[in-house]
C-alpha cells in the first residue's frame, strides 16, 4: 500500500533522527552501526504499536521537540521521560495511544533519562540504505534524507490505520526501566586492560566519573581521576576495530565510552560494557555520574539471557492478547 502522510515536525529540538536497530556488516568499509542508542526502548515502542521490533523510530534528544499528527495514528513513546504532552495534557509513556488528526505532541523537559523513542504504528516510510533506516550523521546518509529532522518535515507511514487497534497496549510495570542520574554499568575487562597499571585498573573500578557536556552519539566522555597506563606503552595504539560500549582511554587518562557512530579507534580500551547494559548508555546525560563494576563473561551472558527472556515474555503476552 502506498505510504500516507502521518506526522509533521513543528520543532526538532536539539537532535531528532530516525533510527532502527542499526547497520551491520559494513565494518570493512568504515561504516559504523548507527542505530538507536537505547535499543530496549526502541524495541518496546515498536512492539507496543504492533510493528516489527526493528522498525525505525524517532530518537528524540532532551526537550524542545514538537510534532503534529496529520491523520489518526497509533504511537508509543518510550525511553527517557522528556515530559511529553498531547496538546495540554500529559501523555502516557510506554503505552500505545492514538494521536487524532491535528493533535500536537510536545516534549517539554527532562524528567529522567536523555532520549525518547517514538514508534508510529505502521512504521515510517523510509528507504533502507546499506540494510538500515538509521541516520548516519557524519556521512549524511540513511534515515530521513541522511540528516536530522527539521521544522516542516513530513514523515509518511505505511498502513497506519491497521495499527489503531493497538490503543491501550502497555508495557508491564516490571519491564519498565528506571533511570536515575547515578549509573552503575557492568563491564568485562579488556581488550587492553593489561596495558594499564594496577593502580589505573583499580581507579577505574573504584571511582565515580562525571558525564561531560561534550558527549554525543559518538561517545560518552567522562571526567574523573585519570587512568594510568603502563610506563612502557605509548599514548596511542595501532588503530583497530571497536564496538559500542568499549571504553577507550586517550592520553589524558579520561575514559570515553564508545557509542554507535565510529567503527575504528586508536586508543586502548580498559573494559567493555556488557550487552545487557548497553541500552542504558542511551539514557546517560551530561552531568550524570557513572561507575563501573566488573563481571565475568559468563555473568554477562547470563544477564543478557535474562534481559532477552523478559522481552520474550512481553511478546508472548502481546500475541496472547493482541
Amino acid at each position, binding site marked *: 500500500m502506498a505510504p500516507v502522510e502521518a506526522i509533521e515536525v513543528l520543532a526538532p529540538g536539539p537532535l531528532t533522527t530516525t533510527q532502527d536497530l542499526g547497520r*551491520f*556488516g*559494513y*565494518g*570493512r*568499509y*568504515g*561504516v*559504523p552501526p548507527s542505530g538507536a542508542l537505547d535499543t530496549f526502548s526502541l524495541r518496546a515502542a515498536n512492539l507496543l504499536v504492533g510493528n516489527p521490533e526493528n522498525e525505525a523510530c524517532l530518537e528524540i534528544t532532551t526537550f524542545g521537540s514538537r510534532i503534529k499528527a496529520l491523520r489518526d495514528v497509533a504511537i508509543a513513546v518510550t525511553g527517557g521521560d522528556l515530559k511529553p504532552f498531547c496538546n495540554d495534557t500529559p501523555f502516557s509513556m510506554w503505552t500505545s495511544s492514538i494521536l487524532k488528526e491535528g493533535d500536537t505532541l510536545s516534549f517539554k523537559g527532562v524528567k529522567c533519562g536523555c532520549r525518547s523513542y517514538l514508534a508510529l504504528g505502521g512504521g515510517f516510510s523510509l528507504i533502507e*540504505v*546499506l540494510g538500515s533506516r538509521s541516520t*548516519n550523521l*557524519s*556521512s*549524511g*546518509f*540513511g534515515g530521513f534524507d541522511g540528516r536530522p529532522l527539521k521544522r516542516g518535515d513530513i514523515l509518511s507511514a505505511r498502513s497506519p490505520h491497521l495499527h489503531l487497534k493497538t490503543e491501550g497496549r502497555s508495557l508491564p510495570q516490571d519491564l519498565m526501566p528506571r533511570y536515575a542520574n547515578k549509573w552503575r554499568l557492568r563491564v*568485562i575487562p*579488556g*581488550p*587492553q586492560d593489561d596495558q594499564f597499571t594496577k593502580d589505573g585498573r583499580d581507579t577505574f573500578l573504584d571511582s565515580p566519573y562525571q558525564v561531560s557536556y561534550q558527549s554525543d552519539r559518538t561517545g560518552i566522555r567522562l571526567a574523573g581521576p585519570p587512568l594510568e597506563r603502563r610506563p612502557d606503552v605509548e599514548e596511542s595504539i*595501532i*588503530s*583497530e*576495530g*571497536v*564496538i559500542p*560500549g*568499549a571504553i577507550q582511554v586517550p592520553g589524558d587518562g579520561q575514559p570515553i565510552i564508545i557509542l554507535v557512530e*565510529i*567503527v*575504528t579507534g586508536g586508543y586502548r*580500551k580498559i573494559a*567493555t*560494557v*556488557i*550487552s545487557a547494559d548497553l541500552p542504558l548508555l542511551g539514557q546517560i546525560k551530561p552531568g550524570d555520574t557513572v561507575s563501573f563494576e566488573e563481571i565475568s*563473561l559468563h555473568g*554477562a*551472558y547470563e544477564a*543478557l*539471557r535474562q534481559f*532477552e527472556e523478559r522481552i520474550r515474555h512481553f511478546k508472548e503476552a502481546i500475541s496472547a492478547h493482541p
Partner: protein
Amino acid sequence: MLYDKFRYRIMGDRSVLVELGDEISPRINRRVREFSVSCMKNRLEGLIDIVPAYRSFLIIYDPFKLNPVIIKNRMEDIQRKIEGIEIPKPKTLEIPVVYGGEYGPDIEWVARYHAIRVEEAIKLHTGTTYQVYMIGFMPGFPYMGELPESLATPRRETPRTVIPQGSVAIAQRQTGIYPVESPGGWQILGRTPLKLFSPLRSPPTLLEMGDLVKFFSIEEEEFKRWRQ
C-alpha cells in the same frame, strides 16, 4: 613481526579482537585481509561483522550463537587451510589530485618542514604505490602506506574543524583521503574529484582494504571537468 600464534583479546561479550602481528607492515596487513575475506566468505552462523585493520581484525558475533572458543577454533581451522583459500586479487587504482593552492593548504608548510620545493613534495607523493591498510575513521576513509620517509610529517598541532570532501592528506608515514567534509588533523596536500563513498553503490567505497593506489597530479581545470 607476524605472530606464529594469533593473539585473542576479548572486547566485551560479543566481540573478539584477533591480532596477527605487532606492527604496521604490508605483509601482516595482507594476512589480515586474507583472513577477514575468508571469514566473510565462509560465514559462521551468528557472525555479525568483521572489522579488519592494520594488524588485527575484530569479529563481532551474536552471543546466543557464538562464543570466543568457537571463534578461536574456527580461526585455527582457517589458519591450517589458508594457503588453499582463494582470495580475490586487490585492485590497482590511479587517483587524480590537484596539489597545492586552496586545494592543498598545507603543502607549503610540509615542503618547508622537509626543506624541499613543493614540486619535490608532489613528486614524492605521486612517486610511490600505496597499499590500502584499512578503511576506518569514517565511511570510505582509506589509511594508506607507506609514505616515503622523506615526506613523513607529523599531524597539525591544531586540527582543522572543516576539511573539504576529497582532501588528500598525510600524517607520519600514512596518506589518506577525506570522503566527506569533516574535522581532521592531517596535513592537506591536495584534493581529488573522485567520490570515495557512495552508500547506494556496491561496494559503497571506491577503495577497499588491500587495494594498491597511485596518485597523479592534475590541473584545476581538469578537476572541475572531472567533477562534471
